Structure formats: C-alpha cells, structure tokens
C-alpha cells in the first residue's frame, strides 16, 4: 500500500508537507527530535486530522484509526495487565476472531520474534528488548498494510538496539513501513529510502535512496557514503535551528 501526505499542515508544526511512502518498502524518516515526526505518524495512523491538505492510504483518505495502519510507539505501549500472549491476541480478539485461531497465530508470531516460552509473562517481567519484540508481534499479527514505527528502539542499550534492528530488517521485509528515528546508522541499515526532515515547519528536506543489497553490512563503503550525506544535511539543519533559537532568545 502506498501512503501519501499531500501538502499537509497540522498542529502548527507541520506545514505544507508532502511525502510518499512506497508500497512494500521501508522509508526512514530522520531529523532532530521535536521536529514533528510524531505528528506525521499520528496523521498517518488517523489519530489526528490535518488542518489542510490530504492524508491518503492506498489512495483513500485517512479518516481515523484502522488495523491496516498500526503504530509501534516510543518505549513500550504493551498493556501491563495482559500477558504477552494476550497482548498479541488483543487485535484479532477485538475484531472478533475466534480465540483458538487468534491464539495459534499469536503463538506463531511470538516464536518468530524469539519469545517462545514467554507467552504467559506480563510485560513488566520482560526485558526492554523483549518488550519491543512483543510489540512488533502485536502489530504484525494483524498483518497491517502500513506499519509506523515511531523511534521504537529509544531507550534500549546499544547492543540490544543492534539486535532489534536485525529482527526488524527480517520481519519488515516486503512491508510498507515508515520508520521514524534520530539514528542515521539505524536508518541506513533498515530503509530503502531516507527522508531527511527539516524543522519549523516540518518538511522533507531531501529524499535519499538506499539502493543496497540485503542483508546489509554496516561497514559497506556505499552505506557509509549515504550516511555521510544524511549526517551532513542533519548537521546543517541542527545548526540552522540552533541559530534560529538564538534569534528568538
């Protein structure tokens, strides 16, 4: 599914912003924090409506939340009162799928993310990395057309983060994904295309293709080159907003 923002303004943060997420590909959105990336995630999820412009998913206007467009939030948003299995079954059960079938599929997915044997644990009994994997499973079990991951690995230690990136590369292959991050390394490792964002108002500064083979090697010279280009842009952007803050003060 292709998702589009067509000249969208919202919440006085995003102004006249256009972008397209190509079907079956992972698009990484990078930019300094506080630049309205989450606002864009909320618009695509249907939690917010734009003040002007159009938000389209599969050519249809987005009018509200839908299981076809799921968000994986910053830090864990698993429900602490449900076991891991019940969390993953939440979507299918909420939509009336039979318990037995929902359970079977949830177990299958938990096994895929390496959480076999942890089905009956509560989220607070899982490590940070396990929580994120459970959360990926909770979204994937619904087979959504669009997955929106809003800085999903924030707060994880470096090693767990790398591991999670590898899980993601495998689990999200072939899906339409918007991956929001502040980490260029992560973006280049996971995405088919980078959207480097600019601040105030939030817009796409530049779109950079990442035409690298998978599985990816983080030390690939071509990857390093793309990283350098993105970093240069981000640095410029940071400098500009820094000076603007100076003027405002």
């Amino acid at each position, binding site marked *: 599914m292709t998702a589009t923002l067509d000249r969208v303004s919202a919440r006085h943060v995003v102004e006249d912003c256009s972008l397209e997420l190509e079907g079956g590909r992972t698009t990484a959105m990078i930019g300094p924090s506080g630049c309205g990336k989450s606002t864009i995630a909320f618009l695509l999820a249907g*939690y917010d409506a734009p003040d002007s412009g159009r938000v389209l998913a599969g050519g249809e206007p987005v009018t509200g939340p839908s299981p076809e467009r799921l968000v994986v939030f910053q830090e864990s948003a698993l429900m602490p009162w449900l076991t891991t299995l019940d969390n993953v079954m*939440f979507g299918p059960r909420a939509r009336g799928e039979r318990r037995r079938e929902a359970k079977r599929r949830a177990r299958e997915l938990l096994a895929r993310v390496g959480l076999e044997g942890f089905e009956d644990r509560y989220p607070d009994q899982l490590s940070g990395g396990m929580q994120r994997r459970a959360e990926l499973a909770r979204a994937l079990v619904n087979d959504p057309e669009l997955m929106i991951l809003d800085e999903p690995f924030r707060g994880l230690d470096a090693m767990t983060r790398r591991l999670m990136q590898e899980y993601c590369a495998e689990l999200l292959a072939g899906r339409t994904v918007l991956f929001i991050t502040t980490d260029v390394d992560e973006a280049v490792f996971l995405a088919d295309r980078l959207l480097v964002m600019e601040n105030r108002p939030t817009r796409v500064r530049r779109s950079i293709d990442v035409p690298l083979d998978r599985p990816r090697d983080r030390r690939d010279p071509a990857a390093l080159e793309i990283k350098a280009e993105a970093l240069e842009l981000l640095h410029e952007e940071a400098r500009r907003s820094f000076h603007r803050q100076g003027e405002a003060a």
Partner: protein
Amino acid sequence: MTAILRGIAGVLAALVVWELGAQLDAPLLGPVPPPTDVAADLVAVAGTSGYWSSWQLSFERVVTGFAFALVLGVPFGLAMVTSKLVKRTAFPVFEILRPIPPLAWVPLAILFWPTQELSITFVIFLGAFYTVVVNVLGGAEQIDRRHLLAARSLGAGRLTIFLRVILPATMPSIVTGAVVGMGTTWEVVVAAELISGGGQDAAGGGLGFLVWNAYQGGDLARVVVGMISLGVAGYLASGAVRLAGRRLMPWQAAT
C-alpha cells in the same frame, strides 16, 4: 518471617511505652488506664456474648455499607471518567457533598431511612463512597494515552476499550480506594452507631456503640477496649480487601 517478628516487636514496644506512660503519669498517657487494666477488662468482656455480637454487628454494617460504596462508587466514578457530560453535571454536586463529614449526616440519615440499621449503614456507606469515587477519578487520569490509541487502532470498540483498557488501568486505583475506603468505614462506625440505642446489653450495640456507651458510663478501660477492637477490626478488614485486590491484579504481583 522477620517482618512478622518486627511487627510483633513494634506492637510490644508500643504497649511498653503505654504502660510506662500510664504508670509514671506522663503527659497525655497519665489518665489512660494502663494496658494491664485494659487487658483485664478485655478478658472480662471477651467472656460475654454481647462483645462478640458487637463485632459481628459492626462487621455486618461495615461490610454492607462498604459493598454499597463499591457497587455505586466504582460505576459512578467510571461514568464520570468515560463521559464528559456525566462528569460536568455530577462532579460539582459530588465535590460539594464530599467535605461534609458523615457525622453531620446522622440526623438526616435517621429521617431518610425507615429502620435504624439502614440509617447506620447509610452513614458508613458515605464514609467509603467518596474515597472510592475520588480514587477512581484519580486513577483514570493516569491511563496511558498510548494504550487507548493502540486499542483503537487494533480495532477495539467502546465496550472492549472499557473492559480491557480503562477498567484494568484504573484497577490499582480502585483497589487503593477500596482499601482506604474500608479504613474510613471503621472511622465512621462510632458516629454511625450513635444512632443505635444499643443491643441486648450495653456491649451488644456494635463496637462503635460500645465505645460511646462506655464513655457515657465513665468506664475508660472499656473505652480503650472498644478503641483497640475497632483498630484490630479495621486492620483485618483492610487486609482482606488488599488481599482481594491482589487477586484482581495478578500482573502487579508478578513483578
């Protein structure tokens, strides 16, 4: 195990301080009958069936009043949480009624209800009701917005969101409200049982009445027996509610 021993040590220490204070005529504690006198009176009163029927009577009243507070307070609180209309209409009335002490309700409680028992239960109910509602409201403010958003995205309707998100998210506060509310019912039991004229004998009108009656008769040791009985009863009742709460929230015990 050490926790239990420490608890016992704490109770013993309090008793020693009390005994010494009473014997040495210390400020505050001087006029109070020492624990030894109270213990003697407790032994005497424990042999009467009236004392134990007071326990039973007070427990029946407290449990009934408390049950009504939960059955009415939790849905009322949740209704204010889920509907702005309900909250805007009912909250001001609730907030004006809330600071009125249950004791002040005694005259009206007598007028409201046809029987003495109902009047007493009503006053006890009031003691717990406000606490329960306030805690439900406070708990709802702590609902994580992302849980609501995630539930909506995953396709949950209003009923599912209520049963599987709002209710469990508020459950810790409901239980806290219930535990504190159970404590409050015992606090108001003396006031409530003022309504009662006593039972088959002076000790049989409920533990609250026992205190009041002993005070009227100038029997200080008996007053203290009644006070301690109320304390122990409240402790047991709140403990039972806390235990039940833990049962309702296995996810909290798990960590």
